[in-house]
């Protein structure tokens, strides 16, 4: 049932009694009108009786006057007679008018009128004439005749009165009947209307009540659904391995899951309703400076935000853990921010694993180079030891001089290689000015034999020293990696080129340098290119760790630079070019090992 239907029922329930009362009033009005008519008729009868009495009085007045005159002959007795005679005809007319619709009465009145006229004409007038003439009018016969006539008049008068009274009593009875009927009808209508209104109201209210029940059921079901949905979300939240905190738009915590509670060290009950900044205190791991909370950031950017690397969370007990986190706005129906959800996890272990991986990769690079270095050292050593043996077994002076020269040149080779190797593994604590040309030359020297083995020719473009501030050992690791990749891609019989040049400052970038390492190998297929910088991705099977480029990019990022790889698999122009951009004066936090991003 909707609101319109409900309003209709309300209107019906309001109007029905009014209509019922109107009908009742109309019925009552009709009844009362009928009763009034009866009362009027009763009054009419009363008036008729009074009129008859008036006529009777006039007739008696005449008779009394006549009798007085008859006895005395004095004219004064005739005063009343004459008065009555003057008005009696109009009174007769009045009476006739009153009963004009009643045939019996009209007939009675005619009889009365005739009887009177007979008495008047046949008795009264002759008596008066006789007396006036001086004669005697005490004749019995005549007087008996007059009495007979008057009796007839009296009889008529009585008949009229009787008839009228009978009618009057009929009317009174009718009035009583009408009143009774009215009361009965009133009771019947009241009962009927009451029952009708009752039934109708009941049916309407039933409809309302069933609609209400349906609404209640729907509400109940909704509540159950909401409860279940909330329960589901709650369980989901509780089971998630990451910490999750939801905040209202003002930054107050509404909910946090057990993992969040563990990570922050704040029990859920204590944290709820507190400002997020109080519970989720984050600082830069390196500088210790407070970091913008994600709430402020989400509000500002109105989108999902991640938090900078190297963020530490200060737990309730003051200890710190490294975290990775992100925040996202919760929009309401109008798209406004209704809240913010924060997801974070402890990456301390992950970071340690990452550091171990980086160290391992460094060792792997070292191991690969060690084989090359062993070769580079053993060859001259073999020559020198053979020369010494020859000299001990007896030589001419000329031979001796020749052998010493040869031994010296071989030893010089060893020294050079050992120097290059030392440079490769010397760790420095702070960035120092590094000559990229020198580094690249050292690496090429160490790898010379590897190039021969792979039958790769190397073309260099190292015209002059290029200086940048950097950690030299780390840059050597990167370039060794990239050059080895190029040589392996180009082999056998291929060509690689290594070059470096300084870059002047542009509006976008400060001054720096670029190192370009290119090969004419088969190129890198497009589908592989996007994965190149992912850890453990390798195209070399057992021979690769899959960490080289990942680590290299980490190192270069730390140096404020970037690595760009362009590759071409076209069968005529195939090849890969790796460009490493470095800034001249990067801002590198000292004293921290490099970290991949």
């Amino acid at each position, binding site marked *: 049932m909707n609101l319109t239907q409900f309003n209709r029922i309300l209107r019906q329930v309001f109007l029905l009694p009014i209509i019922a009362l109107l009908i009742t009033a109309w019925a009552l009005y009709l009844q009362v009108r009928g009763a009034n008519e009866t009362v009027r008729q009763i009054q009419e009868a009363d008036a008729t009786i009074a009129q008859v009495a008036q006529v009777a009085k006039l007739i008696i007045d005449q008779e009394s006057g006549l009798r007085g005159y008859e006895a005395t002959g004095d004219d004064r007795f005739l005063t009343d007679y004459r008065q009555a005679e003057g008005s009696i005809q109009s009174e007769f007319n009045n009476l006739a008018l009153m009963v004009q619709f009643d045939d019996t009465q009209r007939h009675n009145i005619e009889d009365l009128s005739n009887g009177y006229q007979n008495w008047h004409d046949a008795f009264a007038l002759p008596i008066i004439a006789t007396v006036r003439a001086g004669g005697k009018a005490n004749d019995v016969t005549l007087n008996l005749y007059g009495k007979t006539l008057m009796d007839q008049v009296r009889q008529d008068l009585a008949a009229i009165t009787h008839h009228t009274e009978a009618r009057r009593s009929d009317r009174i009875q009718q009035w009583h009947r009408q009143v009774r009927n009215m009361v009965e009808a009133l009771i019947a209508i009241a009962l009927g209307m009451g029952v009708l209104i009752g039934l109708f109201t009941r049916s309407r209210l039933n409809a309302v009540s069933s609609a209400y029940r349906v609404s209640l059921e729907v509400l109940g079901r909704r509540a159950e659904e909401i409860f279940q949905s909330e329960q589901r979300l709650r369980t989901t939240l509780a089971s998630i391995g990451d910490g999750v905190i939801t905040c209202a738009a003002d930054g107050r915590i509404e909910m946090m899951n057990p993992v969040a509670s563990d990570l922050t060290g704040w029990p859920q009950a204590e944290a709820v309703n507190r400002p997020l900044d109080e519970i989720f205190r984050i600082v830069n791991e390196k500088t210790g400076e407070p970091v913008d909370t994600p709430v402020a950031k989400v509000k500002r950017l109105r989108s999902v935000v991640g938090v900078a690397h190297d963020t530490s969370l200060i737990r309730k007990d003051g200890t710190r853990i490294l975290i990775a986190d992100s925040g996202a706005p919760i929009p309401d129906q109008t798209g406004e921010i209704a809240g913010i959800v924060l997801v974070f996890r402890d990456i301390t272990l992950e970071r340690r694993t990452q550091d171990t991986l980086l160290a391992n990769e460094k060792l792997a690079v070292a191991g690969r180079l060690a084989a090359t270095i062993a070769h580079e050292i053993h*060859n*001259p050593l073999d*020559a020198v030891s053979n020369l010494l043996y020859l000299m001990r077994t007896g030589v001419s002076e000329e031979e001796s001089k020749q*052998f010493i020269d*040869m031994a010296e040149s071989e030893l010089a080779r060893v020294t050079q290689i050992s120097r290059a190797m030392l440079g490769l593994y010397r760790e420095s604590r702070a960035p120092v000015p590094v000559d990229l040309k020198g580094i690249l030359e050292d690496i090429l020297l160490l790898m010379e034999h590897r190039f021969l083995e792979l039958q790769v020719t190397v073309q260099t473009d190292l015209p002059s020293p290029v200086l940048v501030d950097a950690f030299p050992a780390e840059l050597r690791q990167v370039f060794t990696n990239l050059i080895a990749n190029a040589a392996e891609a180009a082999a056998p019989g291929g060509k690689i080129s290594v070059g470096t040049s300084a870059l002047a400052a542009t509006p976008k970038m400060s001054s720096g340098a670029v190192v370009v390492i290119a090969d004419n190998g088969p190129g890198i297929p497009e589908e592989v290119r996007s994965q190149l910088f992912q850890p453990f991705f390798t195209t070399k099977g057992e021979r690769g760790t899959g960490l080289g480029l990942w680590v290299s990019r980490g190192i270069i990022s730390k140096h404020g630079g970037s690595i760009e790889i362009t590759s071409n698999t076209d069968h005529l122009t195939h090849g890969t070019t790796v460009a490493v951009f470095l800034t001249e004066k990067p801002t590198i936090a000292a004293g921290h090992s490099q970290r991949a991003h």
Partner: protein
Amino acid sequence: MLQNSHLVLCVDDELVGLKVRKILLERAGYQVLTAIDGASGLSLFEAEPIEAVVLDYSMPGMHGGEVASRMRGIKPNVPILLLSAYIGLPIEVTSLVDLYMTKGEGAPVLLQKLESLLQQPVTAPQPIR
């Protein structure tokens, strides 16, 4: 000295090392032919009556293992001594040759090993044809 005048082929891409080794072996009484890569070594091996080969492992183009395997295909009974600057060569390479040693072990070891290799065919069950 006469019993020592065997013809030995030395193959190595290290020019100084090769030159010194030639002098050393000649002083020990051997006749020495040299080659600076696998391909030229193989052609000498095929053309000359080589009695023993001193072979370097790590060389551009064709490494020692491959050269040894081809030499076995040409003259299976010529003893091969593999010299390497690396330690721990793969087994499929070392199983091809009669002996192998690491560079830098010294001249006496080389001479002694070469001599022992050249004596083997005499005591071998199958005489040289």
